């Protein structure tokens, strides 16, 4: 070993994501005139997933808000009618604790609904270019010589059970266990439960407890209002006056009755279903796919379950709140301002020599990637607008399960088509059931787009990076 002089790196001098604007740290590296260094951007502004951010990144939702306004409207209207029409009568004839209980439940429901909708469900940030290249290198190291692209999976042992981790082509990483890629939000979400259109967001590790509290309290509220309205109408109709008379006197109650009657069954059913899931430490995703029910004939059990209902409940609902992994309100380092979606550009040679105070890639790397982008763009088809099939809009009156089942299946087929990447034209990927318009601001991301079939995009990646070796993939079994 040669005696080298290693410079002592001053960790404080190196760019790390900070909460303060980086303009005073970096000289204008990206002096391309696109971004004024005096107005630093926050990371949520360049977030690659399909999310909407409000309040300067404090609040986030899915871009498709689904029927969240309807949910909010129904709750507000029903509760409002209850307080206006039913409460005065019931306070007079029964007890004044009725509006109090109703008020507490209503506030509870509203707060948990807003928290479910506005919280980061546990989105995993996409892999940095170096990370993605490192993974690709590892996959290639175990390569085979067949031209058929093998399934990109990795097996790990969890509690003595073999679990297959799938490679996510959008996020360019192997998904951790229980993580799934939501096609509606275009993000990998940890402990992915489902994408709930009623709430307008994915339900994952970080907001599952809010979601569960929401549906439980909503079922209490719905049942409570239903009971109160029935009592109210019964009291009014007493003495032979009849139901029609009672309804005429209190028309709001009729509306409430209808809404509550139709929703109480579905919401109670959903609460019961999720209570079962919590007690067995399952996600909706796993339950629908039957991951642990042993459909394939093997004796598989849920490796994440603690085999005790109480411990399962506590670990799901009372575990410490994990942090948000996407640093929404952090400032972008000045050099990343030059690339709108930096994580989507994959450098063929990530080990470019770059200056120490450039975070991810130096100017040389930027030039290389800029040169490559037109080449890649011509090789691969750009994202075409997909026709919106009614999957996410399929709001059944009952509950979100049918629609989410469809979206799960859609997600499932998508994953299968990605895993067993075929050389056939990208028909399976086009069958994805969601609106999939790539905004022009998302370019350059020519190859790492879900529309492109794995063979074509990976083949091009390799041809540019490694000198025309063709579509050669590694088996990881």
């Amino acid at each position: 070993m040669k005696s080298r002089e290693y410079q002592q790196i001053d960790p404080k001098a190196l760019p790390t994501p900070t909460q303060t604007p980086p303009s005073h740290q970096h000289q204008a590296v990206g002096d391309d005139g696109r971004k004024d260094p005096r107005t630093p951007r926050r990371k949520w502004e360049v977030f690659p997933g399909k999310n909407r951010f409000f309040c300067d990144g404090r609040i986030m939702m899915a871009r498709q808000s689904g029927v969240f306004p309807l949910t909010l409207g129904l709750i507000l209207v029903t509760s409002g009618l209850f307080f206006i029409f039913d409460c005065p009568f019931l306070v007079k004839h029964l007890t004044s604790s009725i509006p109090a209980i109703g008020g507490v439940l209503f506030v509870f429901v509203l707060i948990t609904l807003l928290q479910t909708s506005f919280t980061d469900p546990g989105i995993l940030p996409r892999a940095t270019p170096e990370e993605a290249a490192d993974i690709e290198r590892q996959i290639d190291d175990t390569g085979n010589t067949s031209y058929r692209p093998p399934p990109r999976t990795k097996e790990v042992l969890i509690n003595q059970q073999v679990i297959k981790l799938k490679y996510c082509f959008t996020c360019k990483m192997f998904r951790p266990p229980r993580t799934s890629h939501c096609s509606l939000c275009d993000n990998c979400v940890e402990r992915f439960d489902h994408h709930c259109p009623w709430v307008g967001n994915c339900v994952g590790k970080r907001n599952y407890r809010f979601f569960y509290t929401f549906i439980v309290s909503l079922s209490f509220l719905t049942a409570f209002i239903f009971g109160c309205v029935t009592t109210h109408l019964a009291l009014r109709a007493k003495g032979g006056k009849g139901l029609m008379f009672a309804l005429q006197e209190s028309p709001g109650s009729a509306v409430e009755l209808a809404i509550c009657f139709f929703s109480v069954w579905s919401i109670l059913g959903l609460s019961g279903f999720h209570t079962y899931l919590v007690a067995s430490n399952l996600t909706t995703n796993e339950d629908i796919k039957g991951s642990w029910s042993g459909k394939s004939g093997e004796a598989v059990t849920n490796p994440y379950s603690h085999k005790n209902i109480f411990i399962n409940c506590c670990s799901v609902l009372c575990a410490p709140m994990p942090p948000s992994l996407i640093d929404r309100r952090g400032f972008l380092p000045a050099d990343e301002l030059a690339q709108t979606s930096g994580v989507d550009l994959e450098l063929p040679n990530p080990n470019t020599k770059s200056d120490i105070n450039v975070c991810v890639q130096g100017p040389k790397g930027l030039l290389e990637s800029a040169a490559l982008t037109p080449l890649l763009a011509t090789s691969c088809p750009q994202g075409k607008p997909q026709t919106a099939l009614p999957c996410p809009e399929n709001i059944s009156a009952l509950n979100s399960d049918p629609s989410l089942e469809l979206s799960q299946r859609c997600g499932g087929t998508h994953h299968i088509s990605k895993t067993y990447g075929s050389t056939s034209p990208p028909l399976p990927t086009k069958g994805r059931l969601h609106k999939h318009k790539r905004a022009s601001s998302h370019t350059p991301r020519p190859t790492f787009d879900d529309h492109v079939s794995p063979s074509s995009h990976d083949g091009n990646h390799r041809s540019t990076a490694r000198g025309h070796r063709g579509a050669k993939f590694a088996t990881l079994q």
Partner: protein
Amino acid sequence: MATEFHNLQELRHSASLANKVFIQRDYSEGTTCKFQTKFPSELESRVELTLFEETVKTLNNFYAEAEKIGGQSYLEGCLACATAYLIFLCMETRYEKVLKKIAKYIQEQNEKIYAPRGLLITDPIERGMRVIEISIYEDRGSSGSSSSSSSVSGSTAR
């Protein structure tokens, strides 16, 4: 082995990024955050095995402490539920407190152990808790850097 330079400002610009090593997650115990303690071959010539293992093990212990489910976390969870989880808006959660400890620990390790050897550990939280990224720096002027870069580019180009 390593010569420490104390004039950091002057020599900061001489070092350049040569390679990055990624320590992946260890899922053998489920989805709890734990990193593999396997020693990467690229670091063999740079840092001692024991120091590296100790760093990774300490980080794993920190994460285990953050995610521990016990009596205290039950109480916190029940209290949070009773307040409709509004308490998360006001208070710093236990996880966040441990993350601050981790950040301080990593900075300390970088200053004491890794920076003198031309290495830098990136906090896993900045990489989505997926990997521990260790950046390997080379002295730009030394001849060793060209050989390392050629070996790296050789492995990518093949």
